[in-house]
């Protein structure tokens, strides 16, 4: 089994010394994210690719119609699967999930699905009988740190641009229309949570936003903050590592919260831009139901 390449002592010490002088190897400020970019599949709905520095993540949403779970007859289902495969780096194996993968999928699950970002009631078609099952698959194409941020942006962008087929219920029968018959329906998200990680160095004294791969190897802990567009904190996670004092922690969370707000605003702008482009291409104005007949 190939081992993950570790950084050398020299690099670790240099990074730490530099951080003590408020310097980062990339030339970024301690509280700056790497440049984010997003591309949407021009022909398909809900397929996005996000690039954060050298980290690249692709997400896509698939919709199927199933029976709702008996315990929750009025709800549809949303599943998010994140897998790190040898495609990402040779030391990730499919059969043996790594910690990185477990933590990533747990975070996505917790902060998107369980926080109710997408009201699953809206996915119900016929109580106890038919519902939509949304499945978001996350592929990490390149891993250079900052997986949570990139994965959240990818998943939410995918959900925001995906469509569920238009349906009609008549006398207990569900009729599903194809995209040609009737345009699909956009999902209604309650809020858009985004994760930003603050990596902890120097025994908890230094907090660094959006660590890259090398910084992630040298760090002593991480605080992941999930925030949304209105500046609410949806979740704070710290998986082990060094202790962080209360005052420092509050500072880090506040810093990350601000970053989350910025990312969500940027993402919403990008999604709207994409929707406008699609509407123009598909001549949505001419087909609108509001038009004179």
């Amino acid at each position, binding site marked *: 089994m*190939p*081992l993950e*390449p*570790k950084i*050398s*002592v*020299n690099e670790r010490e*240099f990074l730490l*010394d530099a951080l003590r002088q408020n310097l980062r190897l990339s*030339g970024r400020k301690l509280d700056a994210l790497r440049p984010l970019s997003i591309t949407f599949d021009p022909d398909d709905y809900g397929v996005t690719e996000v690039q954060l520095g050298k980290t690249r993540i692709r997400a896509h949403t698939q919709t199927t119609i199933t029976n709702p779970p008996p315990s929750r007859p009025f709800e549809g289902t949303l599943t998010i699967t994140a897998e790190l495969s040898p495609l990402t780096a040779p030391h990730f194996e499919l059969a043996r999930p790594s910690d990185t993968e477990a933590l990533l999928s747990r975070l996505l699950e917790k902060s998107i699905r369980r926080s109710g970002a997408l009201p699953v009631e809206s996915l119900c078609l016929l109580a106890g009988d038919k519902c939509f099952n949304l499945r978001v698959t996350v592929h990490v194409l390149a891993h250079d740190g900052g997986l949570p941020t990139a994965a959240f942006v990818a998943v939410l962008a995918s959900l925001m641009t995906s469509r569920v087929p238009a349906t009609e219920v008549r006398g207990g029968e569900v009729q599903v229309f194809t995209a040609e018959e009737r345009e699909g329906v956009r999902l209604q998200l309650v809020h858009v949570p985004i994760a930003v990680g603050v990596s902890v160095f120097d025994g908890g004294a230094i907090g660094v936003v959006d660590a890259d791969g090398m910084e992630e190897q040298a760090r002593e802990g991480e605080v992941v903050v999930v925030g949304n567009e209105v500046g609410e904190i949806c979740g704070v996670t710290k998986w082990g590592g060094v202790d962080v004092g209360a005052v420092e922690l509050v500072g880090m969370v506040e810093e990350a919260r601000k970053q989350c707000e910025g990312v969500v605003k940027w993402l919403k702008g990008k999604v709207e831009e994409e929707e406008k482009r699609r509407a123009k291409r598909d001549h949505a104005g001419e087909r609108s139901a509001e038009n004179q007949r």
Partner: protein
Amino acid sequence: MAYSDVLLPGDEVPQEQLPSNPKKALSIGPGLRHIPPSTISATSVGALNVDWRRNAAWMDVNGGRYLPSTNDPIIVRVTGSSGEAFNCQITPYTSYAALPHLSFQDATKKTRPQLANGALVYARIATPAAHLLHIDPELTCIDPSTGKSEGLGPLKGGMLFKISLGMARRLLMTSKRAKEDAKIIILDRLGEKWGFEVAVGRNGYLWVDANDIQRTMAVGRAITEVDEQGLVVQEQEALAQKVLKQG
């Protein structure tokens, strides 16, 4: 980079571009193939390089993975010590190379360097891997002709930067032999004003130590920029001016 003679696989090398020293046999290096009686054709994409004095021709390709070959200076990371040698990693995901405890200058069993896990060493390849015999490469920090270290040995402090294999080769090539558009002058320009140490590993690593974090970073970043953007000599001059002004 503006190369004048880029060849594609299968392209025939024109006779007039090959060196024609009547006294020596023509030696062809990687990327070229001899098809008898007298055709030389390219087997990979790249730029044709010729050495008229040594009557040699080879293709220069900036890509692929590093394959250890004898006498290459490389920067390795110590991953552990077993018996009589340190285990060293040359490139990620490849088997370890052995660096014997006694292959440092003036090393005896008592005075051998104590290298921790993760230490960096500038070493030379004594014997490359022999895959069929399952022998891993062996490294040394001694020049066999003088018995001295000749600059090889443990690297203390500083910072490691990743560079492309082509860049590493260009940095190690003396500027006299390099083609005009492959010359690297940025280190000379920065070295005129600043004092710093560098070590170039043919396995795609550059170690820089300027005894100052900002300067070490500036030198490393400048080289990485030259590498990634393929800056030619004039652009390197401009970059050096910019870097010196900021630092």
